[in-house]
């Protein structure tokens, strides 16, 4: 089977999962407080429209986005476990590593969709507050898309870690619990010098670094030693999960 058709199969599996509905709900709910408290942006050290962007994305990226990614890993692993679907998948003439990679791609796809929804909601809510406060809160779309792209890319190592956790730890409560608990210290980690060794705080670090010197300039983050470390973590997690995928099920037959 071609890799693309494998991805198609995986998409088919989660078609009726209502996951997009939950993500949509999450996106709307996170932007509501931003709309209500938009007047606070006038007291910020950066310009109001930039503050509105940063505050809104901070609310999404600090907890909501990582936590929903954990929910997605639960979705991907539990749909296979009900009625022992994974056993049927393992009998197919497909390498388990390929299967695992396909699932990881799906995870990245859902993350991208969520980021897109968040961006769309940003434009809608920026338009609303522009109307309310008679002040232009809209940043240029090109700039917004670029920043969101960087946030998305910076979240890939985190997603890889969560995926490894869900493949590695068979007991769901530990994989979910470890993942959720690992999000909490990211607030502390972004203030330390060693933030780059903690993938869970990358997206949050990227968005908060916008407050650096009074103007948002996310692209000025030091890339060394961040990028090599992030790449190493992503690769390590990806390879480990591909190697481990389906192991436990094979043993239990």
């Amino acid at each position, binding site marked *: 089977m071609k890799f693309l058709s494998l991805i198609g199969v995986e998409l088919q599996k989660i078609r009726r*999962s*209502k*996951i997009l509905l*939950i993500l949509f*709900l*999450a996106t709307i*709910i*996170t932007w509501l*407080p931003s709309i209500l408290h938009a007047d606070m942006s006038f007291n910020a050290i950066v310009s109001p429209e930039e503050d509105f962007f940063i505050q809104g994305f901070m*609310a999404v990226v*600090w*907890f*909501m986005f990582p*936590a*929903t990614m*954990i*929910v*997605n890993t*639960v*979705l991907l692993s*539990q749909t296979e*476990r*009900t009625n022992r679907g994974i056993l049927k998948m393992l009998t197919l003439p497909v390498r388990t590593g390929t299967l695992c990679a396909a699932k990881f791609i799906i995870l990245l796809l859902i993350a991208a969709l969520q980021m897109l929804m968040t961006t769309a909601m940003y434009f809608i809510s920026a338009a609303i507050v522009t109307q309310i406060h008679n002040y232009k809160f809209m940043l240029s779309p090109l700039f917004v898309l670029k920043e969101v792209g960087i946030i998305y890319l910076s979240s890939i190592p985190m997603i890889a870690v969560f995926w490894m956790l869900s493949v590695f730890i068979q*007991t*769901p*409560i*530990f994989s*979910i*619990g470890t993942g*959720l*608990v690992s999000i*909490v*210290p990211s607030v502390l980690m972004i203030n330390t010098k060693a933030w780059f060794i903690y993938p869970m705080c990358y997206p949050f670090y990227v968005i908060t670094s916008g407050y650096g010197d009074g103007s948002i300039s996310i692209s000025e983050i030091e890339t060394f030693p961040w990028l090599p470390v992030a790449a190493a973590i992503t690769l390590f997690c990806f390879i480990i999960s591909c190697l481990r995928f389906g192991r436990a099920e094979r043993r239990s037959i």
Partner: protein
Amino acid sequence: MSIALEYKKTKRTGLLAAFLGGGILAALLPILNMAVRSELYLDLSGSPLGILLNANWKMMAMLNILLILTGACMIYYTEYAENAIQRMNTLPIRESNLFFGKFLVLVVLSIFMLAMEAGGIAFCCLHWFQATSELYLDLLKNFGYFFLLLLPGMLLALLIGSACKNMWISLGVGVVCISVATMIPTDNFVLSLFPFSLPFQILEGSDRIIDFVIAAIIEIVLIVLAEEIFLKVRRLFA
């Protein structure tokens, strides 16, 4: 009887170990915080307990509520996986007994967890501050308050867990609720009444303790009623 049975069901889910781990982690938080930055807190005025809780409780509460949400989803998921709930429904017991059994398991586990956290805080008080003789009484008062405010969130998480067959939906809804709770400012009384944001309240220095206690009790009653009605209605249409 039913609580022993419910506990037995959770045996292989690792619920106890998760609460143990979470409790230890949350108890270590204030200790680590004091070990690293004690000079930041030692000069503050006020009771040691107040200082410690103000500095650490937000994160500890976050750990607690996350753990309880995961536990609540898991504890109901064991019923829905492999359709065990259908067998439970054929037994001559009321469906809501299942809910209360699971609730009691979570209550016991969270008392356990809170006790560990109280231990961590007490250690900090004794080690870094001059503890007074009232420390243990204050500790009991504070953690009793935390416990009561934790119950509405726990019940709501269980209600969500009992409503959804798939764990990712109950977990997803719960996660959305918690992230809403983290966005609510703790000094806004009306918004703080949201069950998932109650655990973030602190007893020390709060002037609306009685209001919060009454609100928590009302919420507990309302959520239990909602669950009873929900189960009845679901049975009618099943």
